């Protein structure tokens, strides 16, 4: 048992992205361990077992209560050293990325990031990494004894296998500098209505809408298509739409069957949150908008004209 997956949790739930990576790791053949670090987290063991972990390393300590990276680096570095773990995998997130990179420096282990797959090739692990706006796929490897990898959010779906994980408790020691950063305040917005992470159809609005009042265009189309509404960080920051609907690097990661982007330029920050979508349709008046580079159908036009007409046609079609 030499591969371990960092399992991120929030409000008593293991995160979907981590469980997806756990399932992928388990599918590579050998038994896989999960790592859960936090305070009051022992109950998460059964969840980890259901999604493919044979073993669960748990560290329960007040230093691990806030989701901050440095005490987690301490804990995993000790775990890797003591248990002979040679591969640690992470689903990328604000927290996991900092943990993985801190760990890479601490134990001088190679870290590959932004992976969309990992395979065994001639006895060695090889990661698949899209680069340069996904125009090139790079096969990456490791030259160090311990291998670290961060996977793109939403790359793998969790697979329930219904097993049980044997729990082993850790008692990590913490470095002085690791506990110097402290969480002063955490404000979590509760989402209303169906979660965009589970929607099959998403209609998303960006700055091109022109103002918060025009979000009704997006809402009407979403309703006609039976989908959910999402927004970019720019419009959430501007206060046009609630944070819970934000798709992107610092928002939600979504992978619906259909993603309709209205007035969204397609900045990297947004792209990483929706690039796992099945079919992407983009409506934007700027013919050079980057969103067109990862759309299946790009429509150069005024969304204020196109979207209401589209809503009408979809309604007619569904009605008839």
């Amino acid at each position, binding site marked *: 048992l030499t591969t371990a997956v960092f399992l991120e949790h929030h409000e008593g739930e293991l995160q979907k992205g981590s469980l997806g990576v756990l399932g992928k790791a388990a599918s590579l053949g050998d038994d896989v361990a999960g790592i859960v670090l936090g305070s009051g987290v022992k109950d998460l063991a059964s969840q980890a077992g259901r999604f493919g972990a044979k073993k669960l390393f748990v560290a329960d300590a007040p230093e691990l209560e806030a989701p901050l990276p440095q005490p987690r680096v301490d804990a995993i570095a000790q775990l890797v050293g003591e248990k002979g773990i040679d591969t640690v995998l992470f689903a990328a997130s604000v927290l996991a990325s900092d943990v993985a990179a801190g760990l890479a420096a601490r134990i001088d282990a190679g870290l590959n990031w932004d992976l969309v797959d990992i395979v065994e090739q001639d006895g060695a692990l090889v990661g698949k990494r899209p680069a340069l706006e996904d125009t090139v796929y790079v096969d990456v490897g490791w030259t160090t004894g311990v291998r670290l990898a961060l996977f793109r959010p939403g790359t793998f779906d969790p697979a329930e296998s219904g097993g049980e994980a044997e729990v082993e408790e850790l008692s990590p020691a913490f470095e002085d500098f690791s506990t110097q950063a402290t969480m002063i305040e955490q404000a979590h917005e509760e989402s209303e209505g169906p979660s965009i992470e589970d929607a099959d159809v998403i209609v998303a609005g960006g700055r091109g809408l022109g103002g918060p009042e025009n979000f009704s265009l997006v809402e009407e189309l979403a309703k006609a298509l039976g989908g959910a509404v999402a927004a970019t960080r720019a419009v959430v920051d501007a206060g046009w739409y609630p944070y819970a609907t934000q798709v992107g690097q610092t928002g939600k990661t979504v992978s619906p069957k259909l993603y309709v982007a209205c007035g969204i330029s397609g900045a990297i920050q947004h792209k990483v949150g929706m690039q796992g979508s099945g079919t992407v349709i983009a409506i934007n008046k700027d013919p050079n908008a980057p969103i067109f580079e990862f759309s299946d*159908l790009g429509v150069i036009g005024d969304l204020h004209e196109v979207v209401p007409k589209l809503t009408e046609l979809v309604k007619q079609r569904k009605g008839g």
Partner: protein
Amino acid sequence: VKIAVCVKEVPDSAVNKRIDQNTKRLDRSGEGALNHFDTQAVEEALKIKEAGGEGEVVLVSMGPAGAIDSLRKALAMGADRAVLITDDAAAGSDLVATSRALAAALEREGADLVLFGQQGNDSDGAVLWAAVSDRLRRPVISQVAELTVADGKVRGKRQTEFGYDVIEAPLPAVIAVSDAINEPRYPSLKGIMSAKSKPQESLSASDLGVDAGALGEEGSGTTVVALGDPPPRGDARKIEDDGNAAGQIVEFLAEKKLL
């Protein structure tokens, strides 16, 4: 306060980026420019210095000797001096190796605050600060969208997947700012004129006391095995609205069985 800002030269956005098939590295032979995300870290450093009325903003970078030209843009914005780690042995350094060199240069500077931009727009890397802070044994706060420095402490507000965090740490500390933090200033004419005469220092691995074998491909923990084409994205289409785009979208949806 003394602030070190880690910045990087990346291929100019007007140049089509490509990976060299022989070295399997990003081709950096074309026109370079200062990584846009780093200008936001420079802007934040200048603001902190201006608010405090004193201090120093020093740029720390690693790259080919020519990268000094890109650093000049940040000097023109108002940074006080630049330190460039440049060594043939450092070419091809990954995260593990790059963080070694940067940490060594930052130790030498002994800044109160080390700032990073959100990501490198060449490698889309967004992790270097965490590796550097671990080597420096200093607290780190990433994705900071609002930064305050007072009473020997730094406080950052940031957005995560779940909402907002406010995190505090004592100085010296390492901060990575998000691209939501500010709008970087344009260099003034006076700034551009004075940039060339500001101190610009080049350091080799041995100047930093770093073993050349700890840098470059030899000092790296990762390797590129092969380059390939991305999986085809199907038949991507682009149409211009002639009044009937909505109809064409409906046909497309029907064709894909999405209606």
